[in-house]
C-alpha cells in the first residue's frame, strides 16, 4: 500500500526490529514489550534538560518497576550517555539481575535515595506485566516507594519530579506531588509531542534518502 512509515507498539521485545527487517517502510519503535521505549526516553531527557540544564554530573533516580519497564531501559541509555549518575530504585523483586552492569547504582530504599537526587522519574507499576507475587500489596508498595509529601519534604528544594503517563494516583505518586510545583508531568506531555514530531520527521527523511540511494544499505542490526 506504499506505507512509508510505521509506528509500532508491541508487547514483544524485538517486534519492531523484526518488522524493519522485512518491510521497506521506516519503522519507529513506540515501545516493544519490556525492552525499550526510545521516544519516551528522549522526551524525559528533554524535560530534565529544560529543568536542570546540562545533565552531566546530575543524579537521577528511576523509581518503581524496573524489571518490567521499557522506559527505564531507554532512560538508562540516554542518561548515562549524557553523563548523569543513575540510581534505579524499587523492590528487590522488581530489579532485574546484573542491571548495575548497565552503569547504574541500585538501591531498594527510596528514603535513602531521595535527598541525593536532582530528578526522580516515577515509573508506573505495570499491573498488566505482573506475573505472580512481586510485592505484597499496593498499600505496601505505596508505603515503601510512593512519592508523597513527606518524602518530597526531604528532597532537594529544586528536585524535579517526572512520571511517564499514565500514572496510578496514590500508588507511585500522590495527587499532592503529581499536581505540585515540582512536578513536570505536563511538560513531559508537551515535550512528547515535539520529540515524536522530530522523530517522525528525521526518520521519514532518512527513509527517503535510503530509497533514493542506489547502493545497498548496511543494516548493522541484522
Amino acid at each position, binding site marked *: 500500500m506504499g506505507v512509508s512509515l510505521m509506528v509500532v507498539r*508491541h*508487547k*514483544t*521485545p*524485538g*517486534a519492531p*526490529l*523484526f518488522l524493519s527487517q522485512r518491510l521497506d517502510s521506516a519503522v519507529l519503535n513506540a515501545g516493544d*514489550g*519490556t*525492552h*525499550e521505549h526510545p521516544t519516551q526516553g528522549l522526551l524525559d531527557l528533554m524535560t530534565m534538560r529544560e529543568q536542570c540544564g546540562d545533565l552531566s554530573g546530575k543524579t537521577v533516580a528511576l523509581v518503581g518497576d524496573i524489571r*518490567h519497564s*521499557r522506559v527505564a*531501559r531507554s532512560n538508562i541509555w540516554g542518561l548515562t550517555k549524557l553523563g548523569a549518575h543513575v540510581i534505579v530504585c524499587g523492590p528487590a523483586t522488581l530489579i*532485574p*539481575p*546484573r*542491571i548495575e*552492569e*548497565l552503569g547504574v547504582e541500585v538501591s531498594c530504599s527510596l528514603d535513602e535515595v531521595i535527598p541525593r537526587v536532582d530528578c526522580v522519574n516515577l515509573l508506573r507499576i505495570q499491573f498488566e506485566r505482573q*506475573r*505472580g507475587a512481586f510485592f505484597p500489596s499496593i498499600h505496601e508498595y505505596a508505603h515503601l516507594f510512593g512519592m508523597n509529601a513527606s518524602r518530597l519534604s526531604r528532597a532537594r528544594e529544586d528536585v524535579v519530579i517526572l512520571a511517564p503517563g499514565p500514572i496510578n494516583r496514590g500508588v507511585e505518586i500522590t495527587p499532592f506531588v503529581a499536581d505540585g510545583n515540582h512536578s513536570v508531568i505536563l511538560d513531559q506531555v508537551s515535550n512528547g509531542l515535539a520529540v515524536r514530531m522530530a522523530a517522525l520527521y528525521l526518520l521519514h527523511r532518512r527513509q527517503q534518502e535510503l530509497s533514493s540511494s542506489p547502493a545497498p544499505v548496511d543494516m548493522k*542490526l*541484522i
Partner: protein
Amino acid sequence: MKSILIKNGRVIDPASGRDEVTSVLIRDGFVATIGSVDTQADVEIDASEMIVAPGLIDMRVSLREPGNEEDETIESGTSAALAGGFSTIACMPDTEPPVDTRAAAEFVILQADRAGNCRVVPIGAVTKQLAGQELAEIGQLVDGGARAFSDAKQPIASAEVMRRALEYTAMMKRPILHHPQVPELVAGGLMHEGYYSTLMGMPPMPAAAETIMIHRDLTLAEMTSGRLHLMGISTGEGVEQIRRARERGVQVTADVTPHHLFFRDEHLQTFHSKYKVNPPFRTEADTECLIEGLKDGTIDVITSDHQPYAEEKITCELDQTPFGVVGLETLVPACITRLINTGILSWPELLAKLTVHPARILELDSGVLDVDRVADITVIDPRPTVKISPPSFRSKGRRTPFADMELSGKIAHVLVGGEVRYSGA
C-alpha cells in the same frame, strides 16, 4: 542381497576399542569380515581418508506425526536423519495425540517401516497426555515397542509422580528421559536469566530452574534405584551435580546438544528466533563446563534435540514462535568442528557418544561395528568444509543457528541392515 565392501576406511568401533585403517565386508545384512578382504563384492565403497563408524544413533528427535505433519512427518524426519548420518533415531512422544498408548507407539513403527529410511525407536509417554498427573500404560507401551519413557519438554513437576514413574519403569528396566526444569521458575521465560535478559527486557529462565530439578531427580533416582536420563543439560552446576551423583552410584546418564556447545545467551541480542531454545543458551562458563563434562564422561550422549516447525511458525514474534531448532542434518559437522578439530574429543570418544552409549541406554543391539553384528554403518568424510544451507535440508524444519556457518565434514554413506540407504553427493 548384495554384498558390500567398504575399503580402506578408518574403522572405529568404540564398543570394542577397534581403531584401524581396514576394510569391512557386509553380506546378507551383517558384517561378515573386518580386515583385508580378497573376495569381490557386488558393491565397493572407497572409504580412504574417511571414518567408518557404527551407524549413528540420535536418541532425542521430535517427529511431528501424527498431528503436525506440516512441521515434519516420520518420512521427512527419517529422511533427514539418514542425511545426517543416523541409522537409528529415538522419537519423542510429544505428538498430537501423544504416544501414550500402545496403538500410538505401533503407529510410529508402522509409519517408519513404510518410509523405509532409518530405524525408529519410539519413546513412550511417562504420563497420560504428557500432563504429569497419571502414569501412562507403560507396560503396554513396552509391548508396543517403546524403549524409554519421557514427557518430552514437559517437566514432571510433581515429585510424587516422578518417584512412582522411576519405580514403575525400573520394573521394566527402562529409563526415564527427563527435561529437568522447574516449570514455575521459567513461566513465560524466553532466555537465560542474566545480563542479556536484563539488557533486552526479556522474560528470564534462571539457571536455578534446571539445577533445582536435577537435584530433585538425582535424589529420587537414588532413592528408587530407577534409571534416569537427564536431557539437554545446559548449566555448569547441573554437570557438577551429575558428576557427584555418578560417583556415589546413582544410575544417571545425560546428554547435550551441539548447539549448546556453540552458542550463548548473548546471541539472542539479535532477537533472532534461531537462538530461542529450551533449555536456553547460557554463558561462556556453562559452555566450558559442558565441554568438561563431555571430556570426562559425565555427559554420555550428544543428541540433536531436533525440533522442526513449519515456516509460518518460525516467522513471527519471539514470544509467539515455539522453542527449538532442527539438528539432524547439522549434528555431525557441528561436532567435528567444535570437538574434533579443536582436539577436545578423539574420534572414538565422539563416536561413543553417538553410538554405543545411546544404544546401551535404550538397550538396542546396534551402536556396534563388529563381525556378525547387523550392518548399520555410517561413513563420514571429515575433510570438506560445508556451508550450512537450510533450504537444502530434507527436514521440513529450517530454523537452525548454524545457518550459513562453515562447518567441517559431511556424511558419505549410511547403511541400515546392510543396505545403502544414503550416499552424499
